[in-house]
């Protein structure tokens, strides 16, 4: 999804020949990297808690 919105930004920037679209895509890339790092750390934590990763079983915040 982030990549698709980045494609829209690049296309818009290319249409007017400005580098702003690419700059926006760079920020999206940085945000995606930070989000993936934290999200996967959560996956790790959840995997230590229960041995299989079932999102339907994660219906409560604590325990």
């Amino acid at each position, binding site marked *: 999804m982030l*990549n698709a919105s980045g494609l829209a930004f690049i296309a818009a920037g*290319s249409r007017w020949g400005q580098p702003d*679209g690419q700059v926006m895509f760079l920020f999206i890339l940085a945000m995606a990297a930070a989000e993936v790092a934290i999200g996967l750390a959560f996956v790790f934590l959840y995997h230590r808690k229960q041995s299989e990763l079932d999102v339907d079983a994660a219906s409560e915040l604590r325990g």
Partner: protein
Amino acid sequence: MVTLFYLAGILAIIATLFAITRRHAVHALLYLIVSLLAIAIDFYTLGAPFVAALEVMIYAGAIMVLFVFVVMMLNVAEHAMEVERYSLHPKNWFGPALLALVLLAELVYSSLTSINTPAPVGVVGPKQVGTSLFGTFWIGVELASLLLMAGLIGAYHLGRQVMEKEGTKHAADTTAARLDISRDLIHAGAGRTDHAA
């Protein structure tokens, strides 16, 4: 060049469709990597070679590799096959697919009835992007570095909790080693006698 754009676009769509319908998690991730590489070709044909290279290096080369590492390390794929088979049942994806089809129809309609002719594509090279990034969008660079620092610290902190839980599970972990870990932030794994499982 235009045919290359459409070819890479269709390839990206097909690869993403495969990625969301696979049961095995690693297969889905590999199809997603193919989709990202096709999008990089799209960026190149749109006159953005700098972000095409960045897409391959960072998105497909670091972020997706991190995903594949975690999925392979946690061995998610085999355990999750049954859950995936259930979630790929028609009655589960019919609603979202219907809404997505409505959106697609809207997109196709708006692009067919648009009166703008496509502008000639000029190449916006790295020099222009760099000038704009460190000139106009300098505060964005600072904020992005803050965000990455926050992500780094957050991932380190969450990972440390995982390592400490790993440590307390093993019988060979002495109290002294645990105290050593909790006191020393940098060398979090030093002085421990057990191995990670």
